[in-house]
């Protein structure tokens, strides 16, 4: 018994050590964001700031409207992840609970969107957005992120493992499809929906090229664009950009920590089932 306890402590220490190693790049970025320029690249290297300074954060916030960018990113990421969640659930519902003509083809087409290189479509999509007059709008920024096939894939696998009999049982009760969808399917899929929401939020929050292209007003720019503005191409000064990086990271990490228990608890329980 004692040996087992000791082993447990050992495993925990090991895991925490490992976690620190994995987290090292982020912790290092945090440390650099608190260093003054000369301490960043020095001999011997500084792991911790010799003297803590908040100058980099001051620069980050005065040089760019960082709060505004974060708000924009938040709005866009929230809109997109909501939409992804809703649309993916609907599509996965169709793919899992209905038999219809062209089902296999439509599903194959859905999966194929994962394999299309997004950068090539950008100008074409820009043209569409520009003709719709959606340049410089939140909807324009969101547009290409409103749906994601990976979410549909994930949810479909989850729903397939969801006993079909449950739906039949619901029908006996005289449940109509919409009611089954909203009253039974959605509530029981909360953990997986959390995953979809969270991973969507993070991925949209981290988008850069598209949000930059379809906005040319400072008030609509997102956080990743802000980070680029802090990056110094000419002189490679790292402090302010690392301050920006840390600021950009805080919301996603917080969100992640809040929801983490819930994801792990229920994600992929049924996993893939054909």
């Amino acid at each position, binding site marked *: 018994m004692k040996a087992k306890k000791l082993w447990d402590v050992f495993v925990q220490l090991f895991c925490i050590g490992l976690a620190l190693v994995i987290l090292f790049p982020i912790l290092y970025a945090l440390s650099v964001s608190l260093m003054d320029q000369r301490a960043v690249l020095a001999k011997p290297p500084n792991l911790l700031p010799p003297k803590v300074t908040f100058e980099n954060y001051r620069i980050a916030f005065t040089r760019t409207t960082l709060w505004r960018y974060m708000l924009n990113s938040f709005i866009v990421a929230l809109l997109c992840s909501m939409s992804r969640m809703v649309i993916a659930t609907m599509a996965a519902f169709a793919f899992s609970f209905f038999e219809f003509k062209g089902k296999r083809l439509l599903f194959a087409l859905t999966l194929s969107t994962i394999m299309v290189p997004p950068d090539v479509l950008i100008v074409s999509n820009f043209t569409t957005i*520009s*003709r719709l007059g959606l*340049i410089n709008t939140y909807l324009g920024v969101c547009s290409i992120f*409103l749906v994601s096939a990976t979410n549909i894939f994930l949810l479909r696998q989850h729903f397939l493992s969801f006993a079909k009999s449950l739906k039949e049982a619901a029908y006996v009760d005289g449940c109509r499809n919409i009611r089954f969808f909203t009253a039974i399917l959605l509530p029981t899929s909360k953990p997986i929906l959390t995953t979809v929401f969270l991973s969507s939020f993070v991925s949209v929050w981290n988008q850069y090229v598209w949000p930059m292209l379809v906005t*040319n007003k400072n008030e609509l720019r997102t956080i990743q664009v802000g980070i680029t503005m802090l990056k110094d*191409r000419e002189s490679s000064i790292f402090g302010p950009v690392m301050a920006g990086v840390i600021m950009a990271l805080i919301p996603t990490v917080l969100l992640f920590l809040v929801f983490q228990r819930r994801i792990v608890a229920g994600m992929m329980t049924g996993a893939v089932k054909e």
Partner: protein
Amino acid sequence: MNMKKTVTFLLAASMVAGLSACSGQGSNDAGSTTTDDGQKTEARSEAETAAEVMDGGDGMEELTFWHSMDSIFADITEKQISLFNETIGKEKGIHVTGVFQNWPGTDALTAAMSTDDIANMPDVIQLYGESVSTVRDYARTVWAEDYISGTEATLKKEDLIPNAVSSHSIDGKMIGVPWGISALMLYYNQDYLDQIGAEVPGTIDEMAKILPELVAKTDAEYGLNVRVNEFELENWIATQGQGGTYFGNNESGHAGHMTELACDKDGSLEKFLGEWEKVVKSGAYKPIRDSINEEFAQGMYGMVIMTSSRIPTIAGLVDGAFEWGVAPIPVVDAADVGGAYPSGSGLFILDRDNKAKKTAAWEFVQFMASPEAQVMWLEGAGYIPVNLKTAELDGYKLAIEEEPRLQVPSDALMMATEKVVPAYVPNSSTTDSVIKDAMIAFGEGNATKEETMKAIVEGCEQAFNDYYRANPID
């Protein structure tokens, strides 16, 4: 949860998107006719009235200015813009808004160009020399020549550094106005040079000779660090000969398109490589670039070669730990004109079918090249004031007194002739990698002079083929 609402909203949105995607083709056709001169005027007057209505009744002309200045350069750019808005802008009813775009600024421009979306085009855009190929044949490019040679212009060609003017000219006509200019410089550690009793080298040969000594007799790990990219190579080509040498044909693209290299045919490339071989063979040269600023500041190198805009950064990093200075880059041949060409960016005006905006845009551009705006570069950015009259300002004198090294780059530009200009290289991101790879292999002793030359010439040829295959010259 108000999922229902969200669903309805999204559905509606996607429907709208679907519908207009189908009808989109027509509007594009209409847009492209504006390039046809015959129909231009008609389309224009409509757009003009629309734009005037948009501006509202207060008579303010709203201008959009796209730039890709980051960090401290962005700070100064913002300062320049607000000074304009508060002075000339207020007086003439013009208000400029600066918008940051992804470096090198061409992504958003080409997107707007290919959709001819004039509502979302800038009035003024900052472009680097290598992007001029994108706009030189574009129908909406407004040539600066049309304004600068006018009688009302307060900015005159004579006010500007001569080779900065020729750098922004095609067939002797200015297409853009130089704005954020820097020059390739030699940075040297004076303490080390004193320790070996050497002067600042004037030629590559002199430089190669002192490199081993720097390593042997000082704390320097290497005598010299420079990664030779297109920028560096072009400078060593351009500064050759009595009057300067062109890197590419058609005067490096300043008269007609540059379709091939010229430096391989007139011997200037070979001559440079021959001299550079001495540097390589010195064994005290580092051909790759890591964190050159910090490394130089920590005394790892006797000399480094990089752009003048890093002077403030180096000053901050060295912070008096040793004496250092900047000088024009060592020349290939003692008889060469030397100096450097003005690298960096200029401002270009686009025609958004609105004459008032064009005129206003010129007011802004000429301000950005004025002494008042240019002197601001000295506040930490290290760009060279492109306007010669800047030297008369107290602010300039003060800045130079504080940091005399800032004077050297502009002297280097003045030293060179009008022929010492950057080439309008098409597809320069590819040629840049080609040159970089070839010169690193050469510098590491993995390629001979002949192999290096061949790699550069053939790689550039392929890059030009790529470009002109897609963009044939009509």
